[in-house]
């Protein structure tokens, strides 16, 4: 499919070495908009909106930040936040920079962990983008929904 110059720029910003070392696409060959659409359908199945997920991820991140890199026991979950120096732009190109914050959320019940960045939360909330498959900070919507016990019976 022919891309507009704007879309070409967008695609470039998602490549390795533009904003992050490995980029945001992993080994996913789908178009960014197709990835967004497919992940959006998973949320729809569970009756969830992207803001619901982003709010929950933000909550964990904010709790983790309070402990300045130490582990925070939130009962069912353990959260740890790493905050590195510097800021990064969103690959979608809107103005603004995001702190280099990485969050680990560990579920004591399922023994599963998800890892995401502050930028991931922004991209989910604003663009519905969870990362290309195989990318370092890709979150599988279904894994997040299960781990955070969100949504109804969409299985």
């Amino acid at each position, binding site marked *: 499919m022919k891309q507009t110059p704007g879309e070409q720029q967008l695609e470039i*910003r998602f490549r*390795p*070495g*533009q*904003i*992050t*070392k*490995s*980029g945001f696409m992993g080994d996913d060959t789908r178009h960014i908009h197709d990835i967004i659409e497919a992940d959006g359908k998973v949320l729809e199945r569970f009756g969830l909106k992207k803001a619901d997920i982003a709010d929950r991820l933000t909550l964990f991140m904010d709790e983790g*930040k*309070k*402990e*300045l*890199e*130490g*582990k925070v026991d939130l009962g069912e979950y353990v959260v740890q936040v*790493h*905050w*590195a*120096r*510097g*800021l990064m*732009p*969103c690959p979608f*190109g*809107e*103005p*603004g*920079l995001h*702190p*280099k914050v*990485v969050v680990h959320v560990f579920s004591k019940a399922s023994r599963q962990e998800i890892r995401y*960045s502050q930028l991931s939360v922004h991209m989910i909330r604003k663009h519905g983008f969870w990362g290309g498959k195989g990318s*370092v*900070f890709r979150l599988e919507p279904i894994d997040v929904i299960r781990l955070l016990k969100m949504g109804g019976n969409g299985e």
Partner: protein
Amino acid sequence: MISNILLTVALLCGINGLLALFLIIAERFFLNYGPCTITVNESKTVRVPGGSSLLSTLNNEKIFLPSACGGRGTCGTCKCRITQGAGPLLPTEMPLLTQKEIADQIRLACQVKVKRDLSIRIPEALFSIKEFKAQVTLIKDLTYDIKLIRFKILGDDEILFKPGQYVQLQSVSYDDVKESVSRAYSIASSSDEKKSIDLMIRLVPEGICTTWVHQYLSEGDEVRFTGPMGDFCLCEGTGEIIMVAGGSGMAPIVSFLRYLIQTKSKRKVTYFFGAVTKKDLFYLDEMKRFEKEMVDFTFIPALSQPEPDDQWDGETGLITVPMKKYIQQIDTETCQAYLCGSPGMIKACVQILNENGVTSDRIFYDPFA
């Protein structure tokens, strides 16, 4: 019928192709802006080829404006005043400029293209920023994710910096990373050393520059950096100095301490270093040496979550805990505080300092932002 449709499609494709060709030719031959003159601060004039962004054009002239996003128009740190020739404000600039800035002719240097003669105003301090070519002479693990890197400046150049300032290190192409990026790192070495600098660099997951430093950079490699930059510096005063920093935030603090030793300062200094477990601690021998060399220096490390194997008998809890305990016992009227770390840590420290009599005009910080 089908042949008509195919003919129409072919005709449209042909017209599109011709238009695209015309645009390419037009860009190649008609958008040649020729040489332009940039007048800086009404005193310095440079003759440059037109067509590139003001930011990159100035960089080529060895005038380095700060830029955190590499000219992508998202950070707003390359703002400068353009009094003539900037052309109309661009939609890409507007979200990053306030109404007052727009009224004051402030523009984003990365977005403004040099198409005609320009007059700009920038802080005089930016003229002292230089590009250096250096060789890596030492790479040393400080912790599992922080390295100390020593760079020897090549040629006749010397770096003149104030303790607390930083440089922007330029990575080179590696692996899938095809383009160079610049990242800011505080200088950890003594400011009387003019032929080399030390940086403390923590590995950032997916970080382009830190991955290059940690996994690809070797002793003997040649690199480039620009600097010095920043205004996180030691201020005049006679009162006690409180320092708070953890991880690679230690870099500017070490430079401060070296300066205080070098100037034989008699000021009392207490440095609170926050870490999670013992494996995050480093430079303990150096801190002991500083305690011996300085008139009145105390290093107080605190572990927020020591492991049982750490056998830790020092301070525990967040770094704000021992800092608060200490500050409540001293006279804070002339006390100054220097902080380097995450915005969360800085916010917590500033609150405690304010509550205990250290006014904001005596608190200086370098947030990880």
